[in-house]
């Protein structure tokens, strides 16, 4: 598994208190919200704060890119990379 992908999964597990989960238990392509991990809107806010603190990226909800970025671990990883390269 890609390094950043593992880091993002660890961040999700820690920030959202997903007990007993290991990075390998999270499907990189499964939706994070609704189906899949079944996260909710509070989780989205928590995740936003954690992403800001860890990777220094900010989420702006109006941006369609964000909605797509939060759709799975893999797209989140590519969004983080994009933000970092644009910074």
């Amino acid at each position: 598994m890609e390094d950043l992908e593992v880091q993002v999964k660890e961040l999700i597990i820690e920030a959202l208190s997903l007990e007993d989960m290991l990075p390998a238990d999270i499907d990189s392509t499964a939706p994070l919200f609704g189906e899949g991990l079944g996260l909710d809107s509070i989780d989205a806010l928590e995740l936003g704060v954690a992403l800001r603190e860890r990777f220094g990226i900010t989420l702006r909800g109006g941006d369609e890119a964000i909605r797509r970025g939060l759709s799975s671990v893999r797209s989140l990883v590519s969004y983080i990379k994009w933000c970092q390269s644009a910074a």
Partner: protein
Amino acid sequence: MLNNATPPWELLCAPRDASTPLDEAGEVTLGQLRATAQAVCDDLRSLGEERLVLLEIADPLLFAAALYGTLLAGKVPVLKGTEFDFRLSDGAHGPGLTLSVSLRREEAGPLPALDPAQRIMLHTSGSTGMPKGIGKTLEAFWRESEMAGQYLSRWLHGDEAVASTVPPTHLFGLTFAIFFPLLHGLPLRRRRVLFPEDLATLGGGRHLLVSSPTFLTHLGSPHEGSGVAVCLSAGGRLGRGAVRRAQAQGIGELIDILGSTETGIMAHREAYREDQWTWFDGVTFDGGRLRSALIEDPQGFLLQDGVRPTGWSTFELLGRLDRVVKVGEIRVDLGEVERVILRQPGVTDAACISVEHGDRTMVGAVVVLEEGVPEGRQQRLMAKLRLNAALKEILEPAALPRLYRFVMAIPASESGKRDLVSLRSLFP
């Protein structure tokens, strides 16, 4: 100065100029809202006699058009629920007959008036501790907007744009992010504020922000909240941390609103200055019963919260008397979650409590399985995922237990009552 509230049943029939803009950016006019409502009405009428119409629309003005179209067709809008005949959606398709709604470009003239007694259904299922089918009349929404407007006019100039972190499908969102601005003639901001960073995009001008404790608790710094002249929060009392963060963000005035689905708004609190609540004008509380113009039952509403009066119109809230807790802004009936868990195959007993985790409240479930206590991380995870997959079909996301503990027996006292202290100690 804030205008008096137009009655909602007259909003689209008033002889106002069709080109009146309704949103902050001036993109959508009153005439377009009328034309879209008329189109929704025609579509719904052509579908048949069934009446319950679920609204799943994020854009506040498109939501308002769908709401009015539904009412105009003589049908009943449903905000949230599992029982409905049709769904009006702004995109994603789901179960049931779904109509996709979009804003019309053309403008239309005044539409027929609605009946003040027409109702909006707030829920049609009992999965979060709500009784089935609570309906609220247009007249009640109007009285509520008037009541709120009278109180808020000490801060609002009447030129604020209304932005929201709360979707229109939540009652507080419908009341304050849809009806309040439309009835008082305040422009709406169409794009929802989803993350704290979005506050910096509000730009110039004064804003009224409709928000919640969950959102305000997540405010970071140094984001820019100075465009927010007044922020309303409802769904649970604001904690000190959230109040401090809002102040540090430069949010002008922070008003905590106490209300419920059954009673509408009840009391307010200036969160920067006041610890105690003040009843809205016209609200009385006596013998555990709340009476106001928003409550139809002349006997009043039996409040499920403990209230300790501190003055003629002020009081402290002592918390729920039953087992309903707030997770985010959602009411979750722990008893109901337990009952749903107990219905799952392989489960012999279950107890749920609310667990504070940092700033967040979660549902913790203590479960006894037929197979005994799952050994090891993998087995625990499997058991937990299996339960949540089944529960997800019945309960709202907020009601899903986030933390599970599997035990041989639910801790109980000698008399058989659940031992709350032991239950709590399972979630250190």
